[in-house]
Each structure stands twice: as structure tokens, then as C-alpha cells.
């Protein structure tokens, strides 16, 4: 019997059991235990790392599992409990034997750090082994367009009354599928910052990888069968690249997935009744339809093989047009409707892609440059307090989870006097931006109480890369100047050189904010808070290390030269709405493409924000972009009638970018950038015709309420190239609860050539 036949026989037997619903009771995990909170100022945890092999492959197994983890409450971080949380763990290769076990402690670590190199092939066996019984609302349970399909929270308001409402804040009562919280145990992986295929086994966030099914206590598909199939997938991928069609997958795996999906459709419970899933919510018919059309099926059960290249750009070669930028990237769960919750649970990890940048840094520092990988997170069991009606204390001032680093609050990074370290910082928080504000000696019992940074820092920093793309040396001088202000928005990464000179303990004080301005929910700046401690101790480094000089700064890759205006083929404008769920006036729509671009073209987009209280962080997958202009109508200059940059609400001619605030060429590359907030002005006029004519294009009136609002949107201008990869992927707000609630668009890059001729 061949392995695939054997697997099929095994599966057939298993499915008989599924059909009969012979499901063994799973042993339930312990309830949360209120525990003493872990002490602050423990050493920073180094997250286990999976490195590439010498043959140019990053081979890893990543498992999505659940278990007891210790979390702190918020805002009271002195209340802690061990409780069920989803988390990622992993090991190198595909055989757990011989790989170090994942740390068994209860600290809420991010997933393994992956380290690849430009030009590598990434091969990841992904397994979703969540036990759905440990989480409410774990599976989709309703039809698109309905509110009942959204996660429901029943809240008691008195000893005898309760109210049921959908997840979301008070403005979310109209949430409907798919733009609401739902299906939180289904997942996938987004490889944030990669320039690779968005399709099939690549950075495909349109996949839904369901939890494995459990039969007699055994997971299906079983691990051995999956690994056998994935070995074939990876071997084919190494020789022919990622598959284009589902029919290129091993036949046994196609059958396994079909059988499991059909079993799911037959047996899953819907509104408390097993086996009653409406036809419109069944998964196999959707897959069958996609396969028949030559499309990649979106629904998978239990396991999925990711395989994609990290293309290396070579001077003079026609392809790829752009390469993968070496730098600090990351990966995280990205299933629409549960991205925020899953990232809040901690389903994130760092993806380091090395290249010439790393080689030249190491060469300059003679291999003495120690790296610290720092994953900032906001860990919790709800993506926002407002999703929990019992603690809805009013938007947007409700407390948010504390900022942790690698699973600990206020961890200690150790440095030696005279040492320079490379800190690869990933903001993996689902919500907040983090401004690195200042270092101060740790002498008082109230660290970070100074409202303003001191004149000089006892520990200095210089930024050398943004969002996984190194700075040009010109920007290293400016953006990367010593102790230059740095705001790390959600999903942003920053590579920092950190220089310690004198022994002592120091606090890194940060300001949490809404992505672009140091402004909290009340409009006033949040006070600084402590992110981590640096303990400078031990023998002096002699001679002391210093920041890399300009002359030795890593060579800037040619494919990242500025995109000239002459290359721009098309311009377009996107408007992120005043609420938290629309772009261009619409929420995300299944089966609808919002933007279509032609392969190998460059475009210039103006990305606007109508919200006046938060800078929606704009993120687009697959291709990075450059910011070439910015309009910020809420800066002090814009509010000062005596300033040349004054934005006069009564005169649209003054709504112009302030010259002193404009990015300068060469431009920095980003993959996530906060859109400046706009202004909203309530007008005395009651209907549009009665409002000032020259303002009317910027006014929206509510006839029912008799109110009119003037919008002066903030905006930035970006340039980007849609090169190397066709396919469908997304752009969205990286305040992930906004993405889940519909602030996302499906976009498509189409070929610029055709096999058709016309003679």
C-alpha cells in the first residue's frame, strides 16, 4: 500500500467516526487562577529562533495551539491570572524530534523568531491545533450580511436582566458579517513586509485555516499525513515555485481536505444545533466552486503548507523588478474578523530577512554587534475594552492593555558600558502607537514622571531602518540623527542602534498614542510610561563602540531608489472614513475588488483621513511605498491664524501642506504609515444648500438630525510600484479592530501582458 493510499484508508475510517459524531470528551483545561503577578524587571526573554539552512531554505513548523498563560489585567496590572490563550510555537524543520522544545512556562511569548536571507525559499508547515471548546465564538456561525453571525456578548445589567449585543463598541450595533468579530479560532499567517506572491501558498491572507478536527482525541488531519503531503509540496515548490492551481497539490491532500470540509459542513453546530449549517455558510461548496474556476480554494482544515520565495534583486537583471528588502519584518494572524483578537492573544512573531545590510553592519562592528529582538504587544482576551459592554467606559477613553515586550512587562535589557547594540523593534500591538520618548536614569520610584525629554539622554539611539527597509545614508543623518524623535505605529518596525556609555540602570520612557501625534483619547498627550529597563553593567567595552559612521553605512540597494514622478502611471485617492469601518464610504465587501492596478506600473496615491481623533495606520501588503507629501491640519502651526501654515476652515485654498513639514528626498520606505487626522467642524447651517457654497464639497449634512459637518481631511501622498507579483490582496487600517470591522479593501494586480495577439 502506498503512503497516500494508506493515509486515505486511515482517513476513511476516521471520517466514519466523524459522521457518527463519536467525539471523545476532551479533558477541559483548568480555569483561570488568580495568581501573584510576575515581578517587573525580569530579564528580557530571548524568543527562540529558527534559522535558515545553508541551502537557502527557511524550513519551519509553526503550530497554533492554546494553553494556560499568565496575563495581567488592565488598567489594573496588579491583578493577574493564568488563563487560556491562543499562542504560536514552533521548531526548525518538520520533525519535532531533535528540535528544542518550546518553552513550557506560562509567559505569553510571541511565536518563534524566523531568520531567513534574501533569495531564500520559505517553507512553513502551519498547523492550527486550537481546541475550539476553550474559546467562545471560535467558529463562524452565520451568514454574510447578518448581525447574528457576529460574536455575541451577553451582559447582565441587573440581577435579573441581560442584554445581548454584537461585539463592537457602542457604534457597532450595526456590525454585520463579514465586518465584525467572528470565527476567532480560524486563522492564517500574514508575512508582513515580504515582497512575494500574495496567492496560493504565498502571503495569502484570504485563506481560512480552520482548527483541526478531533476524533477520539486524535487530530485530523493527522500530523504524519500532513507532513508527508507537505514534503511533496515543498519539493515541488523548490523546483517549480509555488503552485498555481489546487490540482498541483498532492492528490491525497486534496482528498483529505475535501473529506474534512464535507464532514465539517455535515456536523458543525449552528445556533446550538449540530448539523444544521445553512447552505450559504458551508465550506466545501465554496471550495469546489473556486477549484472549478481555477482559483485557489480558501478553506482549509487543520494545516497548510506555506511556500514562497524572498526574491533577490540583481543589478541588470530584468526580474525581479524589485527585490525583498533585507530587514526586520514580522508575521501575524490575519483572518478577517479575528485579526485584532488573535494579535491581542499574541499570534505574532518576528521575521528577520538578512542581506547585504546585515553583512555590512556585522563587518563594521567586527561581529560584535549584539542583536535584541523586541516584540511590543498589547496582550489581552478582547481586542478592545469597548467590545465588552460591562466595562464600556466611553470611547475612546477606555483602558487598553499594557505594553509588554517579549511577554513581560518592563523587562531588563543588559548592556555593557561602551557597547552598541542593534535593537530590532516590532510594534506588534493591535492598537497603540509607541513613541520612544527618552531614556532617564532609574533613580526615583516614579519612573518616566518627567513630562518632557531631558536635554540629553544617558543612553542614545539612532534609527537605521524603517519597516524592514534600511535608511539611505542621507536619512541616517536626518531621520536617524542621535535621539531623533521616533513614533512606532502599530505594525511599524524600527531598527535602532542603542549606545550605552555609563554603568547604571535606565528607563526607556515611551508615550502611547493614536499613531501620529502624541495625543491621547482626551486630546491631551498621554503621560510617558515605562516600556523597559536597560541595565548597563559589567566590564567596559574597550575601545568603546560607537554609531556606525556615514562612510561605512550599509550600501543602499538600487531597487529602492526613489520613484521619480516621470514613472507614475496613474494617480488615485482613497478616503478613510470618519468612523472606524469604511474606506471610500464603504466597508469591506466579500467578492468585490476595490482597486485594480497593472503589473509593473508605478502609481501615486493620496490617502486621506476624515477622522479627527486617530491617525488610521494605512497598510498595504506585498509592495512597500514612499511618502512624498503630507498634510496635517491639526498641528499647532495649522491651528495658528498667524502662522503661514494656518488651515482656515472657511478657506479651502489654505488647506495645503506646510512646506516645513514635508518629507525630503530621498524618501523613506514604509509599509504602514499613519494618515494624519483631519478636522471636523460642526456648522450652523442645517442643510447643504444653506451652507457656504465654496465649502459645500467638503460638507456632509444629516437631514434627519438637521446637522452639517465640514471635513478637512488630513492626508499623505505615496508612491509605489506594483511589480513582480499579480494577484489579489488587501490594504487596510492597522488598528486591527478597524480592519475587522471593515476598514479594508480588496485590491488586485493584473498582468500587463497577454498571450493573445491581433494581426
Amino acid at each position, binding site marked *: 500500500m502506498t503512503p497516500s493510499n494508506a493515509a486515505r484508508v486511515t482517513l476513511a475510517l476516521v471520517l466514519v467516526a466523524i459522521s457518527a459524531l463519536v467525539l471523545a470528551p476532551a479533558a477541559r483545561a483548568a480555569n483561570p487562577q488568580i495568581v501573584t503577578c510576575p515581578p517587573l524587571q525580569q530579564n528580557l526573554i530571548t524568543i527562540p529562533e529558527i534559522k535558515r539552512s545553508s541551502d537557502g531554505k527557511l524550513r519551519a513548523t509553526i503550530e497554533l495551539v492554546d494553553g494556560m498563560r499568565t496575563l495581567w489585567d488592565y488598567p489594573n496590572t496588579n491583578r493577574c491570572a493564568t488563563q487560556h490563550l491562543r499562542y504560536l510555537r514552533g521548531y526548525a524543520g518538520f520533525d519535532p524530534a531533535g528540535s528544542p522544545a518550546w518553552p513550557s512556562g506560562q509567559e505569553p511569548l510571541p511565536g518563534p523568531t524566523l531568520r531567513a536571507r534574501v533569495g531564500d525559499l520559505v517553507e512553513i508547515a502551519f498547523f492550527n491545533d486550537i481546541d475550539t471548546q476553550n474559546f*467562545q465564538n471560535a467558529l463562524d456561525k452565520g451568514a454574510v450580511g447578518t448581525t447574528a453571525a457576529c*460574536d455575541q456578548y451577553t451582559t447582565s*445589567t441587573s440581577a435579573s436582566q441581560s442584554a445581548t449585543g454584537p461585539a463592537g463598541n457602542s457604534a457597532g450595533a450595526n456590525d454585520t458579517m463579514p465586518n465584525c468579530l467572528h470565527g476567532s479560532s480560524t486563522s492564517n499567517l500574514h508575512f508582513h513586509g515580504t515582497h512575494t506572491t500574495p496567492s496560493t501558498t504565498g502571503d495569502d491572507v484570504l485563506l481560512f485555516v480552520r482548527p483541526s478536527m478531533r476524533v477520539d482525541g486524535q487530530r485530523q488531519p493527522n500530523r504524519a499525513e500532513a507532513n508527508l503531503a507537505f514534503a511533496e509540496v515543498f519539493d515541488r515548490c523548490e523546483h517549480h515555485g509555488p503552485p498555481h492551481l489546487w490540482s498541483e497539490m498532492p492528490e491525497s491532500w486534496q482528498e483529505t481536505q475535501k473529506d474534512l470540509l464535507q464532514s465539517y459542513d455535515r456536523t458543525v453546530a449552528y445556533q446550538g444545533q449540530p448539523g444544521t449549517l445553512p447552505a450559504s455558510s458551508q465550506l466545501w461548496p465554496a471550495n469546489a466552486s473556486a477549484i472549478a474556476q481555477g482559483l485557489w480554494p480558501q478553506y482549509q482544515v487543520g494545516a497548510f503548507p506555506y511556500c514562497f520565495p524572498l526574491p533577490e534583486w540583481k543589478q541588470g537583471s530584468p526580474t525581479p523588478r524589485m527585490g525583498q528588502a533585507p530587514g526586520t519584518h514580522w508575521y501575524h494572524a490575519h483572518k478577517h474578523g479575528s485579526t485584532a483578537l488573535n494579535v491581542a492573544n499574541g499570534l505574532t512573531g518576528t521575521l528577520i530577512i538578512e542581506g547585504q545590510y546585515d553583512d555590512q553592519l556585522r563587518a563594521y562592528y567586527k561581529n560584535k554587534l549584539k542583536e535584541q529582538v523586541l516584540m511590543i504587544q498589547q496582550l489581552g482576551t478582547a481586542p478592545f475594552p469597548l467590545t*465588552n459592554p*460591562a466595562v464600556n467606559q466611553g470611547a475612546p477613553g477606555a483602558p487598553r492593555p499594557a505594553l509588554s515586550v517579549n511577554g513581560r512587562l518592563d523587562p531588563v535589557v543588559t548592556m555593557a558600558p561602551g557597547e552598541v547594540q542593534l535593537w530590532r523593534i516590532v510594534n506588534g500591538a493591535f492598537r497603540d502607537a509607541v513613541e520612544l520618548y527618552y531614556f532617564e536614569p532609574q533613580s526615583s520610584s516614579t519612573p518616566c514622571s518627567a513630562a518632557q525629554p531631558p536635554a540629553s539622554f544617558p543612553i542614545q539611539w539612532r534609527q537605521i531602518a524603517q519597516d524592514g527597509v534600511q535608511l539611505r545614508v542621507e536619512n541616517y543623518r536626518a531621520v536617524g540623527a542621535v535621539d531623533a524623535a521616533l513614533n512606532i505605529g502599530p505594525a511599524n518596525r524600527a531598527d535602532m542602534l542603542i549606545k550605552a556609555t555609563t554603568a547604571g540602570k535606565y528607563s526607556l520612557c515611551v508615550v502611547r498614542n493614536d499613531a501620529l501625534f502624541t495625543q491621547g483619547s482626551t486630546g491631551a498627550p498621554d503621560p510617558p510610561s515605562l516600556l523597559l529597563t536597560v541595565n548597563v553593567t559589567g566590564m567596559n567595552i574597550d575601545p568603546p563602540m560607537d554609531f556606525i559612521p556615514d562612510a561605512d553605512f550599509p550600501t543602499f540597494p538600487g531597487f529602492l531608489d526613489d520613484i521619480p514622478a516621470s514613472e507614475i502611471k496613474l494617480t488615485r485617492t482613497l478616503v478613510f472614513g470618519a468612523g472606524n469601518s469604511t474606506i471610500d464610504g464603504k466597508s469591506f465587501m466579500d467578492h468585490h475588488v476595490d482597486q485594480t492596478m497593472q503589473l509593473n506600473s508605478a502609481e501615486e496615491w493620496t490617502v486621506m483621513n476624515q477622522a479627527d481623533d486617530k491617525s488610521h495606520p494605512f497598510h498595504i501588503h506585498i509592495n512597500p511605498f514612499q511618502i512624498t507629501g503630507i498634510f496635517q491640519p491639526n498641528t499647532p502651526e495649522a491651528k495658528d491664524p498667524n502662522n503661514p501654515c494656518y488651515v482656515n476652515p472657511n478657506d479651502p485654498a489654505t488647506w495645503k501642506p506646510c512646506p516645513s513639514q514635508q518629507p525630503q528626498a530621498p524618501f523613506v520606505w514604509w509599509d504602514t504609515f499613519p494618515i494624519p487626522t483631519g478636522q471636523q467642524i460642526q456648522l450652523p447651517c442645517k442643510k447643504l444648500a444653506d451652507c457656504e457654497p465654496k465649502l459645500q464639497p467638503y460638507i456632509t449634512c444629516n437631514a434627519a438630525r438637521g446637522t452639517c459637518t465640514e471635513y478637512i481631511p488630513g492626508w499623505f501622498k505615496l508612491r509605489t510600484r506594483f511589480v513582480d507579483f499579480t494577484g489579489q490582496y488587501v490594504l487596510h487600517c492597522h488598528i486591527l479592530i478597524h480592519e475587522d470591522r471593515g476598514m479594508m479593501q480588496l485590491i488586485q494586480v493584473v498582468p500587463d501582458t497577454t498571450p493573445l495577439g491581433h494581426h
Partner: protein
Amino acid sequence: MSFVWNVTIRKDAKSGGYAYDPPALTGVEIGDQIVWANDDEVAHWPGLVTPTGVNDTYFMAYQIAPHEPSGAFVPGVSGTVTYVDSLDPQGPTGTIAVD
């Protein structure tokens, strides 16, 4: 907020019926979440015991299918509530104490 508390509805081999595990949930605070996981072979529907009967939709909108979890219940007031299976009002009871 918030921690997530679980009550497992478990088949009770001794009695042939079912039981809540734990039968008395303590340590809960306002804003936490409570989820029932049904490990039994039949559906259950925890409802609030009141002087006039069982309020079946107090904690959740639907019954819990076998081997499924419920949605989340979020206590908004402190005190102790007693629940029973709305589908079996004479069955075992459980309590939740909210600090």
C-alpha cells in the same frame, strides 16, 4: 478587564447525568467573561434561576450543542447568580459569584 472563566458541562458517569465543573465559580469580577463548554453528548442551555422560573436567554441566546462552547457572558453587576439547564430545570445547579 478581562479574564475568561470556563464552566465545563461534563457527563457524570456516576449519576448517568451531567455536572458543572466547577459547580461554584468564584473570583470573577465585573467585566470578565464566562463561557460554558458542553462536553456532554446532548445539548444544554444554562439559564438564570429566578423566583418566577428560569430565564433561558440571560446568559446566552441559544442552547449549546454537544461538544461546542457557548458565547461569552459578561457580568455587569456584582452578586451571586444561580443557573440551571433550561432544558432540564430539575437538573443540577451552578453558581457564579461576581466580586
